């Protein structure tokens, strides 16, 4: 290497370093903007909620420190629920019970459905773009609008019961006004609304699976279903964990669909009552923001531990 070349490369290097440090500075400035917003609206709000959970407050007067009294309200409620009190006497327990059932229905179903939809969307067939858009459309529509449309579809004389009479004659439940069906109706809407969103995640992951694995499997005589089960699904494992974790977080704090479809009191028999609804009612109807904050901490702990245990068990780096 000639002297001039060496000089040039050194110059390039220093320029590159300079450029790098400048880039780092610019990145810092840009990131700090988002961080500031996150600090105020995310972390500050969370820290304030934690602080508030030890106080009695009515928004107007001064705060009064009450220690763990707000948390006692929660445990009393849970104990009462376990002892078999009516749903309206143990609202938090009702919300917890419902949301666990809802999560158990929604998360596995939406994950499997999203994977199947992605497998279809990944095929080289005519008009696949149309299907992708159709699947994804619910994800960009407001949940409130979706819920309102579904209330109409789920009416006793509605379209869903009309279609059901061809599949299961005589089965025409009053989805929204019957406590045995309300939560399932809400879960169906949630599955419909979120599967398309997660389909996109799966589709992206599927497209990064090397084609030669499939080719090798095809040469060995594996059919499409076997290829899906033995290649696609295992290769998607990190994405499955990601989708399940996001699904769990979303499902456990569900509010909007229940608010619109069941109402703030959870509808018939409290069947559509969720923990998030209870937190809202505690804060703005019962005017006990301290208790509401304590309930939020409980919900946070629940979401955190469920997702932590899930990730720990499946030990995969979540993207």
């Amino acid at each position, binding site marked *: 290497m000639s002297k001039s070349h060496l000089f040039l490369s050194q110059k390039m290097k220093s320029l590159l370093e300079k450029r790098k440090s400048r880039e780092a500075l610019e990145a810092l400035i840009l990131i700090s903007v988002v961080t500031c917003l996150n600090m105020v609206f995310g972390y500050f709000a969370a820290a304030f909620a934690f602080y508030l959970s030890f106080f009695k407050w009515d*928004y107007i007067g001064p705060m009064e420190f009450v220690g763990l009294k707000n948390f006692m309200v929660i445990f009393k409620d849970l104990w009462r629920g376990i002892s078999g009190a009516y749903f309206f006497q143990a609202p938090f327990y009702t919300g917890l019970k419902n949301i666990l059932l809802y999560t158990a229905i929604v998360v596995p179903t939406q994950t499997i459905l999203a994977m199947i939809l992605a497998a279809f969307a990944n095929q080289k067939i005519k008009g696949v773009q149309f299907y992708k858009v159709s699947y994804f459309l619910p994800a960009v529509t407001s949940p409130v609008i979706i819920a309102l449309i579904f209330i109409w579809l789920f009416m006793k004389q509605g379209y869903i019961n009309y279609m059901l009479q061809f599949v299961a004659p005589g089965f025409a439940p009053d989805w929204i006004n019957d406590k045995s069906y309300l939560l399932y109706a809400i879960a169906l809407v949630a599955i419909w609304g979120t599967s398309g969103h997660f389909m996109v995640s799966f589709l992206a992951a599927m497209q990064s699976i090397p084609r030669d694995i499939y080719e090798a499997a095809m040469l060995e005589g594996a059919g499409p279903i076997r290829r899906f089960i033995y290649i696609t699904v295992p290769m998607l494992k990190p994405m499955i964990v990601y989708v399940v974790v996001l699904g769990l977080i979303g499902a456990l704090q569900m509010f909007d669909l229940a608010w619109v479809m069941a109402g703030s009191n959870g509808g018939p028999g409290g069947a559509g009552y969720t923990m998030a609804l209870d937190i809202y*009612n505690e804060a*703005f*109807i019962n005017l006990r923001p301290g208790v509401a904050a304590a309930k939020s901490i409980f919900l946070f702990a629940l979401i955190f531990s469920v997702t932590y245990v899930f990730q720990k068990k499946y030990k995969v780096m979540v993207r």
Partner: protein
Amino acid sequence: MKYSKALEKTTSLVIALILIIAIIAVAWFAMRPAAPPPTTTVVEKVYIRFAGWSAGETEMKNYEKIIKMFEEKYPDIAVKYEVITQMFHENILASFGAGVAPDVFYLDSAWAPIFTEKGALYPVSDIVSQDFINQFYDFLLEPFRGPDGKIYGLPKDWSMLMLFYNKKLFEQAGLTKPPDTWEELEEYAKIIADKTGKPGLAIYLGGFNRYMPVALSYGAPKPWFDDPGDASWFDDPAVEKTMEWYINLYLKGKIEREKQGLTPYVVAPQDVGAGWLGDAFGKQEVAMVISGNWMIPFLADQFPDFKFGEDWDIAPVPRGPEKRVTMAYTVALAINAKTEHPDAAAKFVEFILGPEGQKELVVKMGHTLPSIKGLENDPNMWPQHKKSLSFKYDIVQIFLWGPKSGELEGKISDIMASAMREEISIDEALNAMKQTVEEMFRGG
């Protein structure tokens, strides 16, 4: 190369700068005080913020119009009208918590004790003349009277319950007059269901405030709950009897009738595919509902072919053996205790609530009833509202059950609904109601 690098650098810096400026701007807009600094203006102008919900675009436009009139009359006061369309009181409470509450705002009677008790309201009676206050119906002022006897809010309008009945369905069923007693109400509902195939009456599942006229007309004591001992209200024989009757209206009128394969004579709005009582009545799915003045403009607007006088009419709420009772619902304009401009706020309240303001905002709009006396015979008053004012009642019970009215209404209504759906027995419901009241006021 150099040029493009410089350009790149400038672009990144400009973007960063724009973002920072945007954040500062957003923060400034969010955190700036209600009134812009008056230093730059020649005449010192006072700014007040006025918050209300909206019953529609027309109401908003009318308010904007009247605010303009006010600003013309008082050029040194400017009013910023803020419409909170959803969860109004929650928003106002949160704004108190954040220290940015408006100067003047709507206040529902059921929420009044909470705000008064916490010292959040400015005593209007300290700043407005007694003559002005004397114009209002006295019973409408009650919810806004503090423990010190001062008035903390002036009612902007009011509504009361009445019986709406479908004349055509009555005719088909061979009925010539609306029911006068609660027994007749049930009897007529049954006759209508049998003769016309349409349910006679629609009620809400739950609805403590809709049940209240029944209890009071049977001699139940005036409800007031602010102590665990007040749970004994539910032990009153009149309460027990009427609660059983009210819950049974649905159990017998809907559930049992359907089991027998007959047309139900009592339904809830959702049973006939309606969103609320007004909707069920307007669609002519039911012959009778007991609802308030707010239903009148709704029917006129949504069901223009279903005409008052020809197709439907109103009658007083049925009476019990003791009395005839109705419920009244009112909303006041209240002034924030921490307002920097109480005088300007009071002037605004006087302007809006005075005869001129109410003529424009209440009488002409036809949504509700004026809260000051003397407008009953205004030529612009809708005939339906005028008729509702002619009904005579022994008690006009304001929607207010004590300091926790909203919470109590919700919880008791949920229990009533549960009993109406056969999830719990009537006895269990009454016990649960008592327990709810006891726990609510046991402290902590």
